[in-house]
């Protein structure tokens, strides 16, 4: 082995050991687990046991459906809002820039449990501050925790509140890497600001928006703490049960590790397929 190779692996070894123990082995092991019947001891090899159940399990289908609904509504809304915020926060005309940025970026540092607690309390049906504020403008109280549609809207609202600033930071950094003279030239040519946004800014931001979409999709596929804590274990009656929550239940409440592993691999497969489609749709047209 060449000397540089030996030195390089010297630096890499501690990191790679952690990687091997806590990622490589688990990835292989959970694939194997998904082919085991783990409901009763001893575990036995039964390739169709979990995968066969997955295809026909209405509870899995419900979690899958809910996750997809959240994905299809929440991700586009959030990314559009994040792009808008990034453009507005980047404006030369903005006053109190620091406070404005703080308002939208602050949720990024708020932990899942803390924000879930506040949202649960704010959206409480009888005494929650949101229903009290809605009453001021004449809206009848909404039963956020017992109406399935309202509960879903609550989850989508909460996730958007928490993550829009994160995506805006990323898009803003992309905006700031666009050279100023591109816009100066466009302004000289009397291109309106709106057209500049659609024909200069958006195309140049496309790669970075794509990254945001993929990160958000992966995040949504694993949504767990919000339905677990805000809508009380995916309530009402499973209306906000997500794939992440379903996996948690199978793996760590029922301790059916084999079935949970099959669910985990399904989540990974869906996330990868959606990511690939995204990159394919967003590839350079050339």
């Amino acid at each position, binding site marked *: 082995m060449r000397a540089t190779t030996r030195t390089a692996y010297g630096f*890499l070894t501690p990191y790679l050991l952690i990687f091997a123990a806590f990622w490589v082995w*688990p990835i292989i092991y959970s694939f194997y687990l998904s082919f085991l019947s783990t409901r009763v001891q001893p575990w036995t090899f039964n390739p169709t046991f979990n995968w066969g159940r997955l295809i026909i399990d209405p509870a899995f289908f419900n979690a899958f459906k809910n996750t997809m609904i959240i994905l299809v509504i929440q991700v586009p809304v959030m990314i559009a809002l994040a792009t808008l915020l990034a453009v507005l*926060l980047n404006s030369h*005309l903005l006053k109190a820039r620091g406070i404005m940025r703080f308002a939208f970026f602050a*949720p990024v540092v708020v932990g899942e*449990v803390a924000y879930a607690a506040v949202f649960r309390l704010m959206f409480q049906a009888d005494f929650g501050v949101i229903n009290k504020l809605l009453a001021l403008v004449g809206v009848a109280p909404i039963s956020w925790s017992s109406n399935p549609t309202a509960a879903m809207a609550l989850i989508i609202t909460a996730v958007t509140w928490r993550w829009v600033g994160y995506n805006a930071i990323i898009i803003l*950094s992309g905006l700031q890497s666009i050279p100023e003279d591109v816009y100066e030239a466009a302004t000289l040519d009397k291109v309106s600001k709106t057209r500049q946004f659609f024909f200069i800014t958006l195309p140049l931001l496309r790669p970075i928006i794509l990254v945001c979409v*993929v990160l958000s999709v992966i995040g949504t596929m694993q949504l767990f703490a919000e339905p677990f804590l805000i809508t009380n274990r995916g309530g009402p009656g499973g209306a906000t049960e997500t794939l992440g929550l379903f996996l948690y239940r199978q*793996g760590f409440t029922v301790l059916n590790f084999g079935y949970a592993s099959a669910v985990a691999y399904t989540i990974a497969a869906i996330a990868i397929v959606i990511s690939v489609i995204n990159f394919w749709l967003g590839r350079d047209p050339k």
Partner: protein
Amino acid sequence: MRSKSQTTLLRTVGLHAVLVPLALIWLFPIWMMIVFSTQPENAIFSSNLVLLPSDQFANNFALLQADTGFLRTVFVSIVVATVYTVVSVFLTSMAGWALARYNFAGKGVVLAIILGTLTLPYFVVVIPQFIMVARDFGLGNTWFALIVPPLFNSLGVLFMRQSFSMMPGELFDAARVEGVKEWQIFLRVALPMARPTIAALCIILFLASWNNYLWPLLINNRPDMMTAPVALGSLIGLTRVSWGGIMTGAVVLTLPMLFAFVVLQRHFVAGIAAGAIK
């Protein structure tokens, strides 16, 4: 020229007409967290609209402390996040250094694997990690369980690699000519030069560990080895638990991070942006 300055004025007004209400909406949950934490229970659950703080924070916190031994869990969280951050910064710096400054067999493979894990959902590894740590090693409810399994992170490596590869190579070559050993070049020359990157990475790692919920929830359930978010989460949804108390816990978890965010905003933003750009 007058028409131009009028357009500018119009734009400025329009911009703030959109942003100011949105900013207030976005700040509202954090404001209400603080308000709730200072209100007595009967004010939170009254039919009056309460939007301003009161003076019951200490009482509420005492209720939370009685429910969970919250101070102990905050201590656990501080220790875990600190040790995790220090160890992780070292591991990822070393790996990033190797990937930035040496050409070696298998480099492409290592890099591809690290990049690949970025798109892999954590759920694929969490079940075997749990089986391995809790059942096979019998290490549930330990510091090891809280700190070591989450250590692998691909973001830090890519972040550090980027920083090291932008440094001038002549500097390291000069040290080599003088016979300085490779690990000394790394420790004495490269690491100090990477200080801004390390600062940003520290913040991101500390925050991730401080707010981590799922793994500590699974692996540690003994009250004295719970992290603060897990202890707080265990109260949500229970009846006869003080909501004012829960909110004081949320404030204790959130305000230090918000304060750090205000002071170190530049590093935070750099860390988050770098994570996505790679």
